[in-house]
């Protein structure tokens, strides 16, 4: 992702989530942490911090949730895996989340959130 696209995404996130947005850097990557997003009904827990990684070498942002997040059926999302990001554990999940700069980051997050509405 280009630097301008990352900056625009950051502005949009601050506009949408206000003080719930924190940013950090890890090498060349920009990390954005949303303190809490609501997940679809039944998920355990019902909300999670969300980490979004903007990597200049990747075409689109990569979302992560807190490890241990379960779907409404009590299972972990299929093909989810724990990974280290910035020295912390985060859970990456497999889902084809469309990304287009013109649609904006908040729509991307809404799509990511929908992953947790699907019971595997």
């Amino acid at each position, binding site marked *: 992702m280009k630097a301008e696209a990352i900056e625009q995404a950051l502005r949009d996130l601050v506009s949408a989530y206000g003080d719930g947005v924190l*940013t950090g850097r890890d090498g060349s990557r920009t990390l954005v942490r949303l303190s809490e997003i609501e997940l679809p009904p039944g998920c355990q827990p019902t909300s999670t911090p969300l980490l979004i990684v903007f990597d200049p070498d990747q075409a689109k942002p990569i979302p992560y949730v807190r490890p241990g997040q379960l779907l409404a059926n009590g299972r972990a999302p299929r093909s989810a895996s724990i990974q280290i990001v910035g020295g912390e554990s985060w859970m990456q999940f497999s889902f084809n989340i469309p990304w287009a700069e013109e649609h904006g980051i908040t729509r991307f997050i809404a799509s990511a959130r929908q992953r947790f509405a699907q019971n595997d």
Partner: protein
Amino acid sequence: MTEIGLRVPLGVGAPLMETVFRQGRHEYVALGLVSTAGDIGRNTMLLRRVFTLDEAAYVRAPGHGGAWRGTAMIPAIEAAMNEGLGLVVFHAHPHDGPPRLSGDDRSSAGRLLQMFAARVPYRPHGSIVLSRTQAAGLITMPGAPMVEMAPRVRWLGASITDWQPGSRGHRILDSAAFARQNLVVRDDGQLTLADARVAVVGLGGGGSHVAQDLAHLGVGELVLVDADRVSSTDQHRLVGLTSLDIWLRRSKTRVIRRAVRRIGMGTRCEMIMERVPGPKAIAALKRADVIVGCVDNLHARADLQDMAWRFLIPYVDMGVNIRTIEIPETDGPRVTIGGNVLTLIPGGFCMWCCGFLSREKLAAELRGPGRNYFENRGGEAQVVSMNGLVASQAATEVLQLLTGFVGTGLTHGSLALDGQPGIQRGFRKLDGVRGTLQDWGASRRPDCSFCNEILGAGSVVWTSPR
């Protein structure tokens, strides 16, 4: 006084000392860029880089130990701002014992630290004076006033050299239990072992050996990390395992903790029944003095490598790889027996530098599906005696890192492979058919993007973008 630590990677400590202990017309300073690791038991600064000043930057200032032009600090300050790092000014008082900050040190630190904090407010900044054995400093933590502290300094080199504030006390260890070992590690080394916390990740054929070796050596605390329970397929190689354990399907952490306790050297165990990089495992690894990886896949190795470099923790990796030869020669070996013991000292070569890890190898290990594919796959060939050979070398590497019984130098040269000055020792390869464990050595690649980005990166500092 508040407690704070400073970790210095291999290859950075020696030039820093050389600069600040230089004899001349005035005191010499060096400027260090630091990240932080706030959750490893105390506030810890991780030194990433050092800037020195040209002789022309110093000015004559009667009554002051050393004075320099403010403009000479601009490159370091710019780098700190660009990379989001703290700034520490180092100088030296060339004597043994605790150094004292002079009135001049205090007044200049007051001005400088305020200026540094205005530029990078979310990192600590400091002015540290080194003696030949200890450190003292004025440190300002984010949002807090400047305070005087005696930092614990950890120098990484051929071994771990710790400078502790104050005396170490006079604990008496069981002298009979360690009498023969003391001939190698001495009393100081034995105390260091008793104070050490070593994480052993993976408690199968390799890790079970390593953990028990470390308990015999007198390591004070072991962090035992493994998510698995034992099964009958472990019985031929997991040292300390009993039939009852298998029947009860006990966790590997519990089996090894019992074995460690029976050795009776007072080693404490923390059991983490979780795979790396689970959150409990990661939190426990951050507090380790040394990490020993006894894992069977490259993804876990990549995670351990990341943690070790990020938080400046030496990492010893071991593994054995036995493969069947499909069409063996008549009367020839039916298998190849390979293996490795890597001693990875932050600041030296990493697994990416030496090609042990690569994106291609990680992708090949995944083969398309998720990580749980290979974490739950069937086991590969394992033989207890071959594991033991490699595991004992891994434990010996830990002994060297903690006690320095074969050297304590801080330079890359002090780790050079015999007769090959550019090659760092610590990449040992097993040829199990011949029965040799040979050090091939490896070199740090200056263009290694992993080293350049992650070494000493520490924890992410979260700030509001507003």
